[in-house]
């Protein structure tokens, strides 16, 4: 149940609805992003339960645009282990297409699995992997 929040460069990764990893590029208004992500978690849960017993494949992992606010778009992604990634992107960032969001989520997922492979990482800890940080940074730089 983790979730990652990325907003126009912000990334938050959550497990069990508490955060595993938070990253924002514009560090102001971070609380606002946190709030939005928390509310979007409800939407994510709704979508997960709506999927029901369907086979979880890559397409369904990507939840798409959760809901658009006036300023921001929130995208969701859930892994097989119910770790939620939430990405909040600036609406002005219209250059971001759906495919790009998908690829970003895929990269996040891959990096997350690499982190999990580390035996010294206990699931539920905050993620302190430098490789993961580097990947998220590069992604956020790419976005903004």
């Amino acid at each position, binding site marked *: 149940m983790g979730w990652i929040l990325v907003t126009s460069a912000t990334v938050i990764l959550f497990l069990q609805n508490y955060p595993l990893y938070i990253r924002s590029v514009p560090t102001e208004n971070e609380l606002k992003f946190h709030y939005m992500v928390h509310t979007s978690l409800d939407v994510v849960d709704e979508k997960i339960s709506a999927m029901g017993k369907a086979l979880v494949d890559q397409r369904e992992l990507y939840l798409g645009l959760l809901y658009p606010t006036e300023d921001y778009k929130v995208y969701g992604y859930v892994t097989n282990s119910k770790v939620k990634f939430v990405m909040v992107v600036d609406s002005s960032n219209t250059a971001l297409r759906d495919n790009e969001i998908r690829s970003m989520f895929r990269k996040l997922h891959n990096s997350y*699995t*690499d982190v999990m*492979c*580390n*035996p*010294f*990482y206990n699931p539920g800890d905050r993620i*302190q*992997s*430098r*490789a993961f940080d580097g990947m998220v940074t590069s992604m956020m730089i790419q976005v903004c």
Partner: protein
Amino acid sequence: MEAAASGGCGSGPPLLLSEGEQQCYSELFARCAGAAGGGPGSGPPEAARAAPGASTAASGPVADLFRASQLPAETLHQITELCGAKRVGYFGPTQFYVALKLIAAAQSGLPVRIESIKCELPLPRFMMSKTDAEIRFGNMAELHGTKVQIPYLITEKNTFKRMDDEDKQQETQSPTMSPLASPPSSPPHYQRVPLSHGYSKLRKSTEQMHPAPYEARQPLVQPEGPSLGGPGAKPLRHQASLIRSFSVERELQDNNSSYPDEPWRITEEQREYYVNQFRSLQPDPSSFISGSVAKNFFTKSKLSIPELSYIWELSDADCDGALSLPEFCAAFHLIVARKNGYPLPEGLPPTLQPEYLQAAFPKPKWECALFDSYSESVPANQQPRDLNRMEKLSIKDMADFPVPTQDVTGDDKQALKSATDEALPKDMSEDSASKSGLLPPPPALPPRPCPSQSEQASEAELHPQLNRAPSQAAESSPAKKDIPYSQPPSKPIRRKFRPENQATESQEPTTAVGGPASVATVKPHPTVQKQSSKQKKAIQTAIRKNKEANAVLARLNSELQQQLKEVHQERIALENQLEQLRPVTVL
């Protein structure tokens, strides 16, 4: 600037600089002036003229530079005086250039006089020892494209070594010079030019070192503590792709040369230690140590969990959650380094990359492979008591003597012979002598029971040997009876022709199961036939007994089934009666 230029020109003789000197000096000037703000960054001709922007080199960096030339302080004072900086109060470009030339002169042994600088001089040598110098030099590094790269690496190794020795740069001159000596086209007086000034020569000659940044880097790192891999490794990575192959070559060369203490290089004994530790955790060196096993093991090193987590991240290159042998060695080495106080690098140093480790140390893997092939064959054959003993001894010997040479096999066989009751002296010595490249096989693996009997007739040539060692047969025959019948049928065919057998069996050690078994079976050659016939009888009796037991059990089964049916029928009958009776009672 105009004032400085005119003042400088007015006070001293006209300064004749060669092109290389001009470039060198202008770079140095730029560097020193960079801290003052702006830095002219101009080419030599412009520097001589009035250049806008920072026109003076800040005294701090200049003083550092002069100190780096390692001339005595009074010489430096003289130089400062002569060049006119003291008079004008600052280091304009002219003063600076004159000072540099004077430094060169002083280093060449000439007296510090204005006249000295009129002649052609080598470039002054500087041992940079300041962080700002390093920073500037670091910038210079990027300026010099690919030409720099190869020497770059070598000097980087030099920096590593230097850091280990915690020496001043002078000592490094000699080791760093040796790779420098290779470019044949370097100017004849190049040898006198220290690495720190190599970059000026770089412009002239195609292959050059760029030692200054790295030499400078080393002292930079020294104050930080021995962070060997870190800063050096980072710029290295920028050019990594181009020079990787070169660097590996050079590194391998340097392996043999003068950098034994480089912290990210694994020495031979360290390597062996790591391999042994790996084996203690995971007997098969070609497979992986799982994450949890590795975690328990590395936790014993008492490093903090985040650090261990980071080390794992660095060393598990393929992120599969398990450590192969080179990955394990890299991780262990990083832990050792960390415990010795070296801060962890930003990325995995090239000498710890799995490919590099595998390339540099192929031998242990090969040894292990042989050992594995042998050990795999062992469990395939269940042994009678003394055979087991022999096997174990042979395995131990294998561990100690992994290289299969004839001498080794002879030794092993001697050891095995002495340790066991079975005396197969002639056979073993013959076999060892005749077989080249065979693993030391156990003296007597169980011979093949069934198929071998068919070979008895055809193995006429083996009979002399049989007669030769009748005692062996007597001893080994009781032991062989317990042997399982797991031998592949193809082996007796090979045993037919002894020379051929040896030829084929010499290839066999590389095959997992068959090798030692077949090799061993050749030995009890003479005894096998008798034993095989006895074994056949034993098998037949066993088969008979099993059949009888089967029959008995089958009969028992049928009887019980019959009883079960009868019981079922009784039950049905009783239930019927109950049903009939029930309505009566209800009423």
